[in-house]
């Protein structure tokens, strides 16, 4: 028998009996960050490829959601803070060693960019739109002129943002489930996939949906591959990481992980997309919604499960 007890009766809220300091706000923040990154990346990509005409929903319509998504995400982060009056302290320093810090700064750069991008399509999509102030008209014409540059910026920042949502967790060596470098690319790919799903859902053109769903299939397969890698890596690592993997392989999180993330969130929508590409008619919102929910559940599971894993001594 090996037993550890706090004989001094330690029972600190949110720390004991197991760590639970991050609640729903952080997974939502990570999810919305990934979603915004996904939408922006492909909007930028198809602009650079000069496919704006064929990919209207991806390049023009979906990015209208991004400013809202990012603002909501930042708001969720704000809600997570326990010393909220000091929020501004985040923006009086940059600390590159701290993912929380450079991530907050990335959001500070990408959010205005998303507004400018959406604004640059306002008049085209809503011909009656009027900016009222001359300066805004000037900004718009500048944005239209330098759209390709903006597209490159968006792609770059979207990748940083997407990877950041994973690195925020993986930088914590103290939580064995998070402490794997695969989390960066994994969250990026998952974010890209949710972005594609959103654009797919909004698209009215058959051609566009086909292109997007092909891309999405690739993302899903990469994601599955990375998840397998993640688990294999854990099983081949130290005891604390083996235990972390066990949470998904028979432990507490097995049911939700396999049913909502792997099957309903990845495998099933992938099957539907394949059927659709083969010519069966499948309402597009079904795979899109499943992917979006799967991504959300994935963030929740990772944040929750990670906090209960720890070093043993």
């Amino acid at each position, binding site marked *: 028998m*090996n037993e550890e007890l*706090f*004989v*001094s009766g330690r029972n*600190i809220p949110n720390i004991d009996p197991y760590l639970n*300091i991050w609640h729903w706000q952080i997974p939502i923040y990570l999810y919305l960050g990934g979603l915004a990154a996904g939408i922006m990346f492909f909007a930028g990509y198809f602009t650079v490829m000069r496919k704006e005409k064929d990919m209207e929903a991806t390049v023009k319509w979906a990015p209208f959601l991004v400013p809202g998504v990012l603002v909501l995400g930042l708001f969720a982060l704000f809600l997570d803070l*326990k010393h909220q009056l*000091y929020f501004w302290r985040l923006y009086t320093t940059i600390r590159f060693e701290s993912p*929380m810090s450079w991530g907050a700064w990335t959001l500070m750069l990408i959010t205005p960019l998303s507004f400018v991008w959406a604004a640059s399509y306002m008049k085209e999509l809503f011909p009656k739109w009027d900016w009222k102030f001359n300066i805004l008209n000037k900004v718009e014409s500048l944005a239209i002129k330098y759209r390709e540059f903006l597209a490159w910026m968006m792609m770059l920042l979207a990748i940083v943002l997407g990877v950041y949502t994973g690195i925020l967790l993986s930088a914590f060596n103290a939580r064995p489930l998070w402490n794997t470098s695969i989390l960066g690319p994994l969250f990026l790919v998952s974010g890209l996939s949710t972005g594609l799903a959103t654009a797919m859902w909004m698209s009215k053109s058959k051609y566009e949906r086909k292109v997007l769903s092909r891309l999405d299939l690739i993302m899903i397969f990469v994601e599955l591959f990375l998840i397998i890698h993640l688990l294999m890596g854990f099983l081949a690592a130290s005891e604390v990481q083996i235990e972390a993997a066990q949470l998904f392989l028979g432990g507490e999180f097995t049911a939700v992980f396999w049913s909502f993330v792997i099957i309903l969130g990845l495998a099933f929508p992938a099957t539907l997309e394949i059927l659709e590409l083969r010519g069966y008619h499948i309402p597009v919102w079904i795979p899109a919604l499943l992917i979006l929910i799967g991504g959300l559940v994935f963030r929740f599971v990772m944040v929750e499960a990670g906090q209960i894993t720890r070093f043993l*001594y």
Partner: protein
Amino acid sequence: MRYAMAIDTKKCVGCGDCVVACQTENNVPHGYCRDWIVENVNGSYPNVEIELRSERCNHCDNSPCVRCCPTGASHIIEGGIVKVTHNECIGCGACIQSCPYDARYSHPDGYVDKCTFCDHRLEKGQSTACVEVCPTNCLYFGDLEDPNSDVSKALKNRKWKVLAPEAGTKPQLYFLT
């Protein structure tokens, strides 16, 4: 200067005086604590071993909590003491996640709080509250770089271990075994 503490697990009786002394000295809110006592029971009767450990922040040499802090609220002062500046802390919880020893907590007022090695007492030439109150004298504190400090002397003649060295934080609490 490198402050550190040695804890004699053979002499500790688990009375909890250090916990109460710290709570009083540092005004720790009710229901919280900066130090605590762990009883580790190994084996079963008649082959059973008990280890009692008075634990607190390890003031790690390679402190992840300082690295991950987005505002610089978590910082290191002279002697390697890891501290939190309350009015710079935004309460994001990153440092709490980063600590392998769960040595930090979120104060009801919002900021993050933890053991300070009683730096306010050290300034006045006193030792930490927990060390001074310990009835069995099982806690040794001082400067590791000074061979005549209590902690250096305690470590010289005894076997010791640190907790979870594999976490890579280079903890500075030494448990005499």
